[in-house]
């Protein structure tokens, strides 16, 4: 029967015909991970193995030496590495928290409220999906400096709070919440604050988780604000510190330290994504642009 051949999207059990996909996907998956794995292994190699020729992929005598040295290192101006890490954690947590609040509030208003500019606002936001911040780095710098934000912690946070992709995803998700539910709550005397915190917020958790991940990836990995907006070395971020590590320290010793730093940067990314993978896929079902 020909008709059964085609309907194998999301199959429940294994069938021989799936084998060819595994034969392609598994090698590609491994290929994608190999470079990452290589650098992760570098982080555990002692100096003698980093110097080795020909270089070896696997580590024979794993050591935490590189991590110990990373945590002892300080920048040229004497700022310890832990300070950068601390800055990054504070900045990332604050930014994610504020982004979630702002995005949820705006998404709710865009989805469930009636006002004149509603459609225009949504269209503008949709156009801004293709906004590439680096293209207008200079005017953004002018805005940041005329607001007096340069060289403050806020320069790492405030320019990144409005996130068109985040608003788009949350709004699409809130569209799935039935209007009747909100009407019923209103009749029971709930105001917008109650509706957002008690009804809409909990129902759109997957979208919020996705926004949190995207915001995390953007902020945690970003060097832009440290490069352009902030002069004070003590206020810069860990990602920035890593770029100075990789460009100033060359040779095997530098390779070991930057590999260790890379791993410290990468692990939170990976963990957060793994924990929330299901939520992300839920959100993505409603991500289409119509």
């Amino acid at each position, binding site marked *: 029967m020909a*008709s059964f*051949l*085609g*309907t*194998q*999207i999301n*199959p*429940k059990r294994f069938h021989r015909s799936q084998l060819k*996909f*595994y034969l392609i*996907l598994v090698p*590609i*998956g*491994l290929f*994608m*991970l190999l*470079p*990452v794995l290589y650098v992760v292994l570098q982080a555990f190699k002692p100096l003698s193995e980093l*110097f080795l020729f*020909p*270089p070896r*992929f696997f580590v024979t005598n794993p050591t935490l030496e590189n991590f110990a040295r990373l945590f002892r290192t300080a920048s040229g101006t004497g700022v310890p590495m832990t300070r950068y890490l601390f800055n990054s954690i504070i900045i990332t947590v604050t930014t994610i928290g504020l982004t979630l609040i702002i995005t949820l*509030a*705006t998404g709710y208003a865009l989805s469930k409220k009636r*006002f004149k500019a509603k459609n225009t606002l949504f269209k503008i936001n949709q156009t*801004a*999906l*293709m*906004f590439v911040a*680096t*293209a*207008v*780095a200079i*005017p953004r710098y002018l*805005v940041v400096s005329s607001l007096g934000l340069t060289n403050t912690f806020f320069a790492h946070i*405030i320019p990144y709070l*409005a996130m068109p*992709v985040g608003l788009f995803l949350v709004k699409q998700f809130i569209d799935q919440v039935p209007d009747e539910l909100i009407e019923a709550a209103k009749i029971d005397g709930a105001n*917008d604050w109650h509706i957002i915190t008690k009804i809409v917020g909990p129902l759109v958790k997957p979208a919020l988780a996705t926004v949190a991940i995207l915001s995390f990836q953007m902020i945690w*990995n*970003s*060097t832009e604000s440290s490069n352009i907006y902030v002069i004070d070395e003590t206020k810069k971020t860990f990602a920035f510190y*890593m*770029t100075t590590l*990789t460009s100033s320290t060359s040779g095997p010793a530098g*390779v070991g330290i*930057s*590999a260790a*730093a*890379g791993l410290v*940067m*990468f692990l939170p990314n990976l963990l957060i*994504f793994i924990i929330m993978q299901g939520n992300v*896929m839920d959100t*993505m*079902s409603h*991500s*289409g*642009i*119509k």
Partner: protein
Amino acid sequence: MAFEGLKKMKLLHPETKQKVMEHIRRLESDKVSTTLLLAPYVILFSLFIVIPVIVAMLLSFTYFNVIETPRLADLYGLYNYIMIITQDEVFLRYVLPNTLKYAIITGPGGYLLSFIMAWMLSQIQATPRKFLALALYTPSMLGGVFVSVIFRTLFSGDKSGYINSLFLNWGLISTPLDFLQSGDYLMNIMIFVTLWSSMGIGFLSMLAGILNVNKETYEAAYIDGIKNRLQEIFYITIPSMKPQMLFGAVMAIVGAFNAGGIGVALSGSNPTPQYAGQLIVNHIDDYGFIRYEMGYAAALSVILLLIILFFSRVAYALFGERD
């Protein structure tokens, strides 16, 4: 105002009148609430997205060196644009061709790759799919800094570099290649790295889109005479998930242009060796933050935004729903 009229309606029963007034009060407070909900986003969005774009457009017609106040550029303000098109040899010989090559390969290429991978993933069971999707997604979440650490290590220019040592070992080369500093390979490595990390949020969106296509649509199509999987993709899968295809396309375009700093990150210098990896984004930084010719840099930004806009228009024309 209509409300004034309502107040004058003495004929109304007091109780009805009270109800009407109550309703109006609720509407008014709802307006205030809506404004409060929207205000933070709208303000931040205007400040950091809308205003920068407008400022870039305005500055592009001026001469501005950060110290003096901007003044209208020569030739009715078009000086910067005319210079870019006629005099900027680096732009015309390297930056523009590089940007177009890079964007055309990594944008549509990364997009196609994402779609093919997402489609193949949809053909296997849920549990292995979860792990394989994670493996494909991982490179995109690393961020520019870690990506450059990885590839600077792998493509290191001496014989202890991993790729060099593999090639030496296989007898492909006799002396180590200077991958990142010589300019001969930089562009290809940039394209490779960007494609490698191109399966991001757009990929996840398309995967979800494919998984959500109604199974009955497929069955109906087979009864109507569709014969193989290729026909299935073009006649059923893609048309049923156009919104996700469009989202994926926009994300691919943005990703390609956002990753523009990769050449400088890999080679460690701006300009890149022999301008081999010089893209518009680097050219803007070069003029803006190194030479402080802000008006000129702004004109370059406007050109970049127009290129991005053009690519997205193509995507909308392909997958957008026509009204």
